[in-house]
């Protein structure tokens, strides 16, 4: 997946040895990082740090914990780079998979959970997608995702948002939406499939 939101900066213009005409992609850089190349990591950083921080914040919410988790994720990206397999997805997908899982792990620990339940009650439900989006620069990617989320049924969209941005398990989603478990499972899948097709994810 190419990421139009975080274009390569000047520092990321390092060229791949196999192809002089092509700027280094995040995948090229991650392959270099896998060999212990710190300068490649410095070039990769601006391509992934913003999305990683954003994902973690959506799930974790607490500012201090968000930065702590984001830091763990970015260091984990360095640490686990030798295990990255480009056949299984883009570098950004890999980074955001690490980020989301780690954020979810954090909020599902017992203490964090009880804190969150209280907070969640106070907020009376999932946050609307627009609420956080307004704090960051509007861009094409965000518009496209918003438009595609809008193309889902309400149940699909709410299920996907609660699971991804809320870090909820599908049984929590089912309870929050007072919908049978099996229905939520299905809506998560067909909602994502519809999003996939709308976003043109290969």
């Amino acid at each position, binding site marked *: *997946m190419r*990421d139009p*939101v*975080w274009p390569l900066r*000047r*520092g990321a213009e390092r060229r791949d040895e196999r192809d002089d*005409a092509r700027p280094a992609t995040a995948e090229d850089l991650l392959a270099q990082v896998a060999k*212990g190349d*710190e*300068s490649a*990591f*410095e070039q990769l950083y*601006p391509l992934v*740090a*913003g999305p990683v*921080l*954003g*994902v973690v*914040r*959506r799930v974790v919410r607490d500012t201090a914990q968000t*930065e702590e988790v984001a*830091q*763990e994720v*970015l*260091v*984990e990206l*360095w*640490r*686990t*780079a*030798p*295990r990255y397999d480009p056949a299984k*997805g*883009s570098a*950004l*997908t890999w980074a955001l*998979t690490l980020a*989301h899982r780690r954020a979810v792990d954090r909020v599902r620990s017992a203490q964090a959970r009880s804190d969150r339940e209280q907070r969640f009650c106070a907020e009376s439900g999932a946050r609307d997608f627009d609420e956080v989006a307004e*704090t*960051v620069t509007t861009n094409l*990617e965000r518009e496209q*995702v*918003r438009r595609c989320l809008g193309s889902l049924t309400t149940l699909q969209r709410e299920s*996907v948002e609660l*699971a*991804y*941005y809320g870090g909820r*398990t*599908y049984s929590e989603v089912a309870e929050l939406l007072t919908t049978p478990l099996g229905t*939520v499972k*299905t809506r*998560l*899948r067909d*909602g*994502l*499939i519809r999003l*996939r097709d709308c*976003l043109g*994810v*290969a």
Partner: protein
Amino acid sequence: MSSPDIHTLTGAYALDALDELERRQFEAHLAQCPECAREVGELRATAARLGTAAAEQPPDALRRRVLAQVAITRQNSPVGGPVPAQPRSATTGRRAGAGWAVRLTAAAAAVAAAAAVVLGVVTVRTAQQRDAALAELAQAQAQYAPVQQLAAAADARGGSGVGVRGGTAFVLASHELNQAVLLVSDLPAPPPGHTYQAWLIGQGHPRSVGLVQPAASNRAAPLRFGGLSGATKVGLTIEPAGGSPQPTTTPVVLFDLPT
């Protein structure tokens, strides 16, 4: 979990919405279901787009902390079992005796943060890139003969760093010739009785490659030096007039020696 509907869990799995037990069960299933694995891959990529849409500008302090920690973190083996969880003590772990390299990397991050710019290294490989590098050199008074001679080398590479208090340093290096030149531009004048000193940093102690005294024009003459083997970074520190055998301050500019 009954087998017929396990496929519908691809969505919940891609969104990390399974509890721990179900996640393990589904991963066991994934290993035997290439079709599920393909779908999970696509749905993960889709979920990542939701993540990209939530991107925000990360604070400079985060970059500084991450790079400092990366400098002291060993990478996993490329082979072996699943990636183990990171130890919780990771943010406090410090390897004893890591010495200069660690402090320099942290300093590099501080440089970047203070200047609010990313330290950039441009690798010169194509004719077009070399032209760009030469243009940058021209900006930095590239009329000097040693610079042009180096720039003509087949393996000439350029790299630059931004000073913590402004200014830039630019190195053009040829490992074939084992020669490099350092040019600085717009560095603030060092305090009275002090000078900038340039260092090559690799394994072991930093090696002084000479003093850099910005002239009235804020530009110093190019500093030519050799002995590049083993060096990975170039740094400038402020030292007492006449220079020091080893750096006594943290670098004001630090960047990778182009390779």
